[in-house]
């Protein structure tokens, strides 16, 4: 009873603070967690973005990398204002179009290069249509899209195609769990990131240092991760580990790249999505 009261009070307090229970709790996910009711409206405004270069000097470096494709889907076409969620949704649908070409009719999802590396095609009129449909199904307006609206829109789109959708949160005790996300990526499930403030960059490796050029924004944004990279360094100041996801950013000037989960960003929620 006391426990229920505590939960009830917590919900009430979180509600006051602008948070609500996540609509995406997964069956089997015993942990009750909350996500804020946030409108994601990251727009591709070049004036609201900035650039930054970060250099990581090291004595030695180790990396662990896994990608679901050599060139991931990286569509950026915005059907209307505040449509980052719809664009992210179109990248997600584009990924699964590889396994069922009927998801996006008349669109070639990509091709296998050298018999081993899958490379996704770039956006076209058919992927634009997907983004527009998702924008409508998510009920997006100029204020943006909530996480619940995103999930509902994806489910509605897939249901019409005869597909089912499962979403699983990669949060643990209110924080992002890299190990959970890694597990789902390795199970061929992309991760949808709901973030406040984002970065997307390119990492250049050199013998004694790495250089990461970022495009940054403070906007609430939705991006899709199709791979991960872990860079572990021994530096003069000690050991450092950087965690990245290879994301479709939805940002026109940098449609794909590394998202550093600990750099000028806050992950509000992250969902592994399976479409089957």
């Amino acid at each position, binding site marked *: 009873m006391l426990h229920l009261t505590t939960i009830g009070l917590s919900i009430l307090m979180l509600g006051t603070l602008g948070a609500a229970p996540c609509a995406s709790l997964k069956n089997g996910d015993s942990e009750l967690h909350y996500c804020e009711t946030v409108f994601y409206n990251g727009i591709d405004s070049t004036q609201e973005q900035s650039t930054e270069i970060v250099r990581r000097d090291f004595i030695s470096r180790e990396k662990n990398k896994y990608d679901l494709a050599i060139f991931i889907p990286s569509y950026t076409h915005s059907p209307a204002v505040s449509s980052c969620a719809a664009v992210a949704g179109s990248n997600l649908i584009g990924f699964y179009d590889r396994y069922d070409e009927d998801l996006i009719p008349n669109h070639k999802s990509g091709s296998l290069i050298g018999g*081993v590396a899958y490379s996704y095609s770039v956006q076209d009129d058919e992927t634009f249509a997907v983004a527009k449909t998702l924008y409508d199904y998510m009920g997006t307006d100029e204020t943006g899209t909530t996480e619940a609206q995103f999930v509902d829109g994806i489910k509605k789109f897939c249901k019409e195609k005869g597909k089912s959708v499962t979403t699983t949160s990669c949060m643990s005790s209110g924080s992002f769990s890299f190990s959970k996300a890694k597990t789902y990526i390795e199970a061929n499930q992309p991760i949808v990131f709901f973030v406040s403030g984002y970065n997307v960059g*390119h990492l250049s490796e050199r013998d004694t240092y790495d250089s990461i050029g970022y495009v940054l924004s403070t906007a609430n944004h939705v991006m899709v991760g199709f791979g991960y990279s872990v860079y572990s360094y021994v530096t003069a100041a000690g050991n450092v580990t950087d965690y990245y996801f290879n994301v479709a950013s939805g940002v026109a000037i940098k449609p794909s790249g590394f998202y550093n989960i600990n750099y000028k960003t806050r992950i509000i929620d992250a969902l592994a999505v399976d479409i089957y």
Partner: protein
Amino acid sequence: MNVKRYLKNQAKQDRQAIMEEDNGETLRALGIEYPAKKKSYRRAWIAGAASLAASLAVVLTCVFTLYPFGEQTEKYLEENFVTEDSTVERMNSELHDFSLTLDEDVCEIYRTYDGVSGKALYYQLSVNRYDNSLHGEFFITCNANYQYTNFTFSLSPIFETLPQYSITYQLDSTVDPQYGFETISCMAEIKGETDIIYITQYDELILDGHTFLDSVQSFIHARGN
């Protein structure tokens, strides 16, 4: 009476002559008040004013002749920007210094213009090779009054003079540990007198040995070449 007036005038002339000779020092030595250098001040003021007027005339002439008022005062507000689908043909018609040879089937082109003046500001291109081994993103400004500021090289760039134009670029080559392919990632800036081509992202699988500069020169050409 006439003699008196004559003497008075003569005294005034003498006094004036003495004053002009030594700036009134003699008169002041005799205890007679006299405003010193009054005439000199007036002359200096006139000379100064003339000099100032001449300087102003020169400065204003230079400013009005050399300062491009018509162009520089044209400011564009982002809330008025309008983006629309476009074509290679239209883009080439609005570029001043370059032309691009691209197959419409492998690229997406967006034109952004100022909704108030109707003037084109920039184009954004996504370029893809048929076999999906090349993805490129281009931001091309075609209006001298629009500045694109979100472009920064993350590595020390290389400057190279090509037959048709010069290019500043960074090149990053890696062998993908998962798939074993060599991939290159590049950024580049090609400046014309008015147009500036920014290659914000360029990822290519190196399958046949050709280089980034080969690819760039195959579809970006300077006007008149």
